[in-house]
């Protein structure tokens, strides 16, 4: 699990009203444009090279291929994919990862939005104390709490179970913090009206709060999915049997078995494609999430 952090001082979860007027200051001459273009292209090439290598090398037949030639797209073979998907528990790990990520997203969004709503719009005894204790816990590194959490889970016989892996990650204080910030910015009158019409609190939450907070649900959902999909240390210690590994811990275990490189990379591609698709589709949420809330990538 990733650690949680408070957003930068400017953080406001509501979309910022930003002037988009084109900026003409200091646009230098042709030299600057060419220089900038060259630097950006080099930066992009360096950034993308590992992805290119991952894909190309995963489509190589097993056997030694030495460096410069190995970057050519031939000889082409899907052998590594057949082997890694067929012989290894890849599909099972994919399923585990999906379950871990999706159930956690639903759980975090549900519990955090309920709590965030109460913290933003309701009054109850102990509210301030609770909220500040949530914030204070953001300071404590995840690794300090991980050991006692593991002990609790193992006392409850949760090691090597889905619930043991998922439930502790639902206590995400950063999610509550972001929810509260967002809901606090909504006008009270929206809720009051429904309440005067005789709606129950649960009804207000389901039919008024939830539809209004869709933007923050999307942003947070995307990040919670990402954190869980890429999570490593917690699944490593709590999912110990082969069948309970996730894609990250599974691929790390393949690597320690000295599986050939093309198979390792085929596995990596399989693990990467879903998050890549999610990134392509939800790019806006990833990037705006970072820029407006400072949420950790």
């Amino acid at each position, binding site marked *: 699990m990733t650690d949680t952090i408070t957003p930068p001082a*400017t953080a406001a979860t509501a979309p910022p009203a930003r002037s988009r007027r084109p900026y003409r200051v200091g646009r230098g001459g042709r030299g600057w444009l060419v220089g900038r273009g060259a630097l950006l292209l080099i930066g992009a090439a*360096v950034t993308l090279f590992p992805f290119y290598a991952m894909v190309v090398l995963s489509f190589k037949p097993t056997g030694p291929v030495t460096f410069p030639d190995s970057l050519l797209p031939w000889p082409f073979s899907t052998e590594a994919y057949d082997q890694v998907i067929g012989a290894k528990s890849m599909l099972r790990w994919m399923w585990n990862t999906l379950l871990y990520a999706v159930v956690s997203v639903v759980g975090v969004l549900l519990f955090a939005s309920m709590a965030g709503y109460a913290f933003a719009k309701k009054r109850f005894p102990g509210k301030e104390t609770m909220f500040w204790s949530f914030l204070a816990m953001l300071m404590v590194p995840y690794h300090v709490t991980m050991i006692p959490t593991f002990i609790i889970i193992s006392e409850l016989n949760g090691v090597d179970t889905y619930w043991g892996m998922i439930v502790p990650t639902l206590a995400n204080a950063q999610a509550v913090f972001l929810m509260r910030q967002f809901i606090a910015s909504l006008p009270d009158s929206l809720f009051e009206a429904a309440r005067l019409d005789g709606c129950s609190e649960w009804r207000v939450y389901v039919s008024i709060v939830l539809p209004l907070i869709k933007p923050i649900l999307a942003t947070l959902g995307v990040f919670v999915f990402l954190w869980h999909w890429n999570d490593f240390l917690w699944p490593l210690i709590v999912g110990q049997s082969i069948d309970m590994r996730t894609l*990250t811990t599974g691929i790390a275990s393949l690597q320690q078995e000295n599986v050939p490189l093309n198979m390792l990379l085929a596995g990596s591609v399989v693990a990467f494609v879903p998050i890549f698709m999610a990134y392509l589709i939800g790019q806006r949420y990833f990037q705006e999430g970072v820029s407006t809330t400072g949420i950790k990538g």
Partner: protein
Amino acid sequence: MVALPESRVRGSRPARGPVRRPRRPSAREAGTALLFVLPFLLLFALFRFGPAIAGVFLGFTDYTIGGDTSWTGLENFRRLVDDPTFWTALRVTVVFTALSVPLSMLASLGMALLTRRAFRGAKLFRSIFFLPVVTSLVLAGVVFTWVFADGGPWSRAMGALGLPAGNWLADSALVVPALVLVSVWSRFGYGMLILLARMQDIPAELEEAALTDGASAWQRFRYVTLPQLRPALFFVAIIETTVSFQVFDMIYVMTGGGPVRSSYSLVYLLYDQGFKYFDLGYASAVGVALFVMTIVVALIQRLTLGRDK
């Protein structure tokens, strides 16, 4: 920590007339509110608050799973101070952080400046630079192991430049720099987005004024942009330091802490002690050390980078 004290804003209630809310929450209102908070509260108490307290507490015991536990006072910390492995892990972690945080922030700043203005393709470049941030460090580790392998792209490139060729990951002096490069690759896109968001908020008039006054590009950057970026730089520094102090995934995949512990980090030590040797008390003491380090460095950064002008 930046927290927003906003709960005081609510006092603008009219003194008379149709009072919209009673002064004190009714028992009913408080009850339903608590029901909304309850599920999260239970999870938080059991898996975050409790463990945070217990994690510090365990550092003062000799807890092992299934064994007896007794209070051993400062014994674990004494052992830590006498343990050469701890000092190795501390050194590796500090060197790794001291190299990767500034380098990654420089890359963030550079790329933010280059993609700052709207031009055709700016969005595409930003998306490319952010891609490593969403990529698991396990996958990155697998690919970079190949990149750094003997005879691979990195060793060839270094050889051509007359720098040390060979497998950097197998060289006890070069393994940390190699890991730093991976870390910079994986993290700079995050800082870039934070800095870009801040840059968009800098009023254009400021730079226009500087331009009219004949300031050079460097002067505008140094005296207009950079001061405005200070809070954002502080934020990125804190996050990147925290992330670097906790480096584990890529080391696990790329080097296993080797060669001969020259890339053995604190979290690696915590993992080994806790989950290989099941000495959870000692592992917790390592966690406490990590906690203290994080706070101390955050305070130092607050006093330097984060200070008010």
